[in-house]
């Protein structure tokens, strides 16, 4: 300190530099004029969960098989699922009711991590305020279901990885089914060739 008050003057110089700098330096003017200017969200950004469906029809393309793992693992217990049943009362691998109460949801992404069917994913929509406390904050199945192309538009990398995994699974299943069918069709020939590859080590 050279003379009394020099510390204050030094501080004021910083303020002045920031004030003047805010007109020229991008670093010092960080305000985004929100409704006109929208932030570009990073790919990882998340808000609330949604359900992915393949193709064009949400009902038939739904990936969810109503296994209820997310319902069980959800820390604040905000997911509610009822499994669908056909006329005979037999359970179908599809949810009849799938509700997420986003006034309870804490956006932790654990449902996404535990879902074995790549069905539940995190949305990026953040403009969810409503006048109604109960109705519009409980997302039901029609509101939750969003297409795979939407998923690709918000999380491109993650969605591509997911598609790769699903494709690999499908190919594996198809190969297994084909092998099974071939085995059933021509047991003597195929079993000899498949046993050599699948049951190595057996005499």
């Amino acid at each position, binding site marked *: *300190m050279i003379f*009394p*008050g*020099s*510390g*204050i003057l*030094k*501080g004021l*110089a*910083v*303020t002045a*530099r*920031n004030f003047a700098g805010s007109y020229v330096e991008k670093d*010092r003017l*960080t305000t985004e004029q929100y409704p006109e200017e929208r932030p570009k*969200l*990073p*790919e*990882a*950004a*998340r808000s609330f969960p949604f359900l992915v469906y393949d193709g064009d029809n949400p009902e038939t393309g739904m990936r969810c098989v109503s296994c209820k*793992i997310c319902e069980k*693992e*959800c*820390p604040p217990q905000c997911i509610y699922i009822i499994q669908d049943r056909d006329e005979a009362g037999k359970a179908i691998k599809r949810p009849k009711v799938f509700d997420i109460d986003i006034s309870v949801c*804490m*956006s*932790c*992404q*654990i449902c996404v*991590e*535990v879902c074995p069917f790549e069905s539940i994913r*995190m949305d990026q929509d953040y403009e969810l305020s409503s006048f109604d406390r109960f109705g519009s904050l409980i997302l039901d199945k029609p509101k939750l279901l969003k297409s795979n192309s939407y998923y690709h538009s918000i999380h491109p990398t993650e969605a591509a990885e997911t598609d790769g995994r699903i494709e690999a699974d499908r190919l594996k299943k198809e190969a297994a089914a084909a092998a099974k069918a071939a085995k059933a069709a021509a047991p003597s020939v195929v079993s000899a060739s498949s046993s050599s590859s699948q049951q190595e080590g057996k005499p």
Partner: protein
Amino acid sequence: MSFLPSLESPQTIDVSLGPQHPSTHGVFRMNVTLDGETVTRLQPVFGYLHRNHEKIAEGNSWLAAMPYTDRLDYICPLTNNWAYALAVEKLAGIEVAERAEFIRVITAELTRLQNHVAFLGFVLGDMGAWGTALMYAFREREKILDLFESLTGARMMCNYMRFGGCRCDLPPGWLDTTRKLVDGFPKFLDEMEALLTGNEILLARLQGVAPMTADRAINGGMSGPVLRAAGVDYDIRKVDNYGIYNRFKFRVPRGTVGDCYDRFMIRVLEARESVGILKQAIAVIPEGPVVNPKAKQRGFRPPAGEAYGRIEGPKGELGFYLIADGSDKPYRFRIRPPSLINLTLLEELCVGTKIADVMVILGSIDIVLGEVDR
């Protein structure tokens, strides 16, 4: 003032500060008894933000307790995540992936940076300089929060660490952005110091206010910057060497008299040391998996036993004491929050000071009510 007989036996007045007051850092209430302007008694009242954290964790799975830890000290979610993950790893004997250790150090030090920067702004707000310093501080903090968002998906409720590692790998380009930010950070700290540390008003408000001796700090169970400001060389990063902190070179700054000014400056110095750790960590971070593939997350059942995992959080020693009974839920889930325990000496520090200093003293301890009330 003997010529004013009514002042010979002065009446005291009770003032309720808070719970909704911008300087109480949340919903914290102090019932202060004043003799004139001097504080003669101070009674903290807390619990307004109590949300049953420990019991909720005991009713949920081990993994499901992780996102709740974000909400403890909501300024620094990633260190909270780490403390819990560390306790569980100790309990179940899980090895942490090498790359994840580096990511943990980087995110924890970034957390410390933004916490200390926010502290500088808040403490100025407590002194009445509401605005300027806080806006500059939050401008820098926002850059770090943007990094957190691109890495973990959320600015504050990160939920990023997992048992044996971290949830996901660094996105492409993240390290470069971080390196740029870290390299530019000392410049911001210089600017902040030019703005603040020489300011005569700030010195008058902070120096000599509520000093704490080293003995008192140790006996009061203080930890973190408050303890080190009192002159005690105790940093859990050095004492425990948890994670991979023994690989980095850094110094532990210490205060001399433990007054508010020491508590203020120690944050600036610690932020500078954090920048050093970040530079070292970013330079040598290895490639590899970010989570131990053997570690189970869902349906995780650690063997029966107990463990106490603690880390040097930005506010002090954050510990998780866990008891497992072999089931998929913790039998006991106890948190040792630094904010609550650093708050226990508040009355002692405040009695005898002026009412206007109470805010500064509370601010210099650096509490977050999410952690105090749990």
